[in-house]
């Protein structure tokens, strides 16, 4: 009886493999038939699952919207999206980068979304000459590594860190600040910028583990509590940020928590709960929805049923830069790289032009402060750059 069952199961498995294989073959031959000058792909590279996935999904949705629009206007020569899910982990990044590089139809990449995975993947892209525009990896040193293919469509933490410090000093008037980071390329880098700018107002620091690895922060909370800080800056992502805010509030710490773009997501409020999250400040080199031009916000909502998230708009613009290249007939990676290098144009966020290191032209960088109010993230004001 049991042997029979095993045989039946085995047979089903074999059948499934055969069907799957046939389906795979079919789709392969389909892409070959579409000809040489068409069938190009754009990669989105970032976390689509894992503890920080909300940030990646925001961007992937922005890219998808851009492609959707493009394909409606160019039905004869559609561009497909190849999403590569890094789970936000530098360990996964090189293998995925290789996958993008090996696919000859890929002409450009939007991402990698996080700084840590950028450090792991970008050397491979640079070697292969595959252009990549990140809409959210803000660690300043990314542009200093000599990668030929690196572009950043957003301001970096050299702008964001001092702006956060300025907000803490000028708006919160806090002179006792505790700085925590998650030891990631992004979080630690940002925390260092904030510490530098705050100077002697920093009365204590601690480091936690990011990537969903740590959930218990009692040692850190105790230190914050006994330091008497009136403001706490956290360099890291929303998962740990939310848990830290909750743990602080539960321990009776009323200090305002300040975070940055990696923490600015509704999932932060879900993790912390509305009551604990109230009053939390985020700085972000991203515009409030009302400042974004055109029909972007409405189109996004029509497609996904939700408002655009942090960096959905920047990713949309980054994808459009690549699509403009394809439209202009840049069919090789070398042509595409040259095209992005020389690109000047308007997106929904603002105007784009890159420095020779691939940074967004400084005049286009804006930093905004946001605040949690009654379970919603609302813009407060634009923070002037020092």
């Amino acid at each position, binding site marked *: 009886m049991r042997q029979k069952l095993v045989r039946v199961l085995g047979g089903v498995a074999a059948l499934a493999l055969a069907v799957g294989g046939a389906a795979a073959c079919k789709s392969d031959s389909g892409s070959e038939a579409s000809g040489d000058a068409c069938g190009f792909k754009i990669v989105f590279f970032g976390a689509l*699952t*894992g*503890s920080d*996935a*909300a940030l990646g999904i925001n961007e992937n949705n922005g890219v998808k919207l851009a492609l959707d629009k493009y394909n409606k206007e160019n039905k004869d020569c559609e561009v497909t999206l190849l999403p590569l899910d890094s789970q936000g982990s530098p360990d996964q990044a090189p293998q995925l980068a290789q996958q993008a590089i090996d696919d000859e139809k890929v002409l450009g990449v939007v991402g990698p979304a996080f700084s840590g995975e950028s450090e792991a993947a970008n050397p491979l892209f640079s070697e292969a000459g595959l252009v990549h525009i990140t809409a959210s990896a803000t660690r300043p040193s990314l542009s200093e590594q000599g990668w030929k293919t690196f572009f950043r469509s957003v301001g970096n933490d050299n702008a964001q860190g001092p702006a956060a410090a300025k907000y803490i000093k000028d708006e919160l008037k806090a002179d006792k600040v505790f700085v925590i980071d998650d*030891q990631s390329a992004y979080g630690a880098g940002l925390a260092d910028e904030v510490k530098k700018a705050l100077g002697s107002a920093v009365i204590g*620091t*601690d*480091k*936690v*583990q990011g990537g*969903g*690895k*740590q*959930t*218990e*922060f*009692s*040692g*850190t*909370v*105790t*230190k914050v*509590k*006994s330091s008497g800080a009136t403001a706490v800056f956290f360099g890291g992502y929303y*998962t740990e940020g*939310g*848990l830290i805010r*909750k*743990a602080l509030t*539960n*321990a*009776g710490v009323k200090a305002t928590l300040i975070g940055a773009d990696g923490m600015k997501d509704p*999932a932060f409020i*879900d*993790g*912390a*709960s*509305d*009551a604990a999250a109230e009053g939390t400040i985020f700085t972000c080199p991203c515009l409030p929805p009302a400042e974004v031009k055109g029909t972007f916000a409405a189109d996004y909502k029509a497609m996904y049923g939700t408002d655009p998230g942090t960096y959905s708009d920047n990713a949309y613009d980054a994808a459009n830069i690549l699509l403009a290249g394809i439209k202009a007939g840049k069919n090789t990676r070398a042509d595409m790289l040259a095209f992005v290098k020389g690109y000047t144009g308007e997106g929904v966020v603002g105007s784009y032009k890159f420095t020779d290191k691939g940074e967004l032209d400084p005049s286009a960088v804006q930093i905004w402060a946001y605040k949690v109010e009654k*379970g919603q993230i609302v813009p407060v004001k634009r923070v002037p750059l020092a």
Partner: protein
Amino acid sequence: MNVDGLISNFGELTTTGLTVGAIYALVALGYTLVYGVLRLINFAHSEVFITGAYAALFTWAAFGLTGNSRVSGVGSIVFYLLVAMLVAALASATVATVIERVAYRPLRKRNAPPLAFLITAIGASIVISEAFGVYTRRLSRGAPAVVPSEPLFRIGNVGISWVELLIVGSALVMMVGLDQFINRSRVGRGIRAVSQDPNTAALMGVNKDRIIMMVFIAGGLMAGVAGVLYNVRIGALAYSVGFLLGLKAFTAAVLGGIGNLRGALLGGLLLGLTENYASGLFGAQWKDLTAFVVLVVLLMFRPTGLLGESLGRARA
């Protein structure tokens, strides 16, 4: 090194360390029980814990409590806690039973080598945690504030809250109950007999399969309660948190002496305290490193753990 920080925060680091340690200890019991009887590490036990934690969240959600809810009033607090503990303990025990039936019993019947058990257990662990990951779209979920976290009274400058009392208290109660069960009841005698000498126990009329099942169920009940307490303490749950917590609990079991119930309690509390003191002294980035250095050094001098390896020989 921040010795002043450690000294001035010693009280609070101790209370929070004990709280975390109590949760480790409850999960550690599951490892220790199974090891005591089967001489195998049940690596799927971390997912038995996660199942309990999710069962508690879903139960609260069924009563309309979300991550933003606050429960007040003694009656409703007790009600929500008890219901969640009951459901979580049952869910965890069920999953533990299923793991035993699917990943252990068939292999045992075929006299599989110990490595095969290790792999089926790791397999079961990954299957369960990934299933929760897919179901929750890998997002973390907030837990309602069922128990108030405000300080209830103060000892010196250290506030003690209901959360801390509840966690340490229920861990102790569960632990004493289990200890009594193993040492006094008929089934407990069977468990001790099988753990001392399975073949002789079988000759004496002890049903080994039933005893093994009971051990998994008892470990599951403890893990389910630990899941509720975890939600009360941390206030948010993600599918992936079982792995590290399971590893810590396993460490606690080895530290106290695997196969030894009281050792699991001692090991759990000690690990929680070591982690907290280390993060106070060197910074939170050093806490895991310090905890494991302590473990290795301790095992160098006491290879069987602090209290030694003895489920069978545990004295009442």
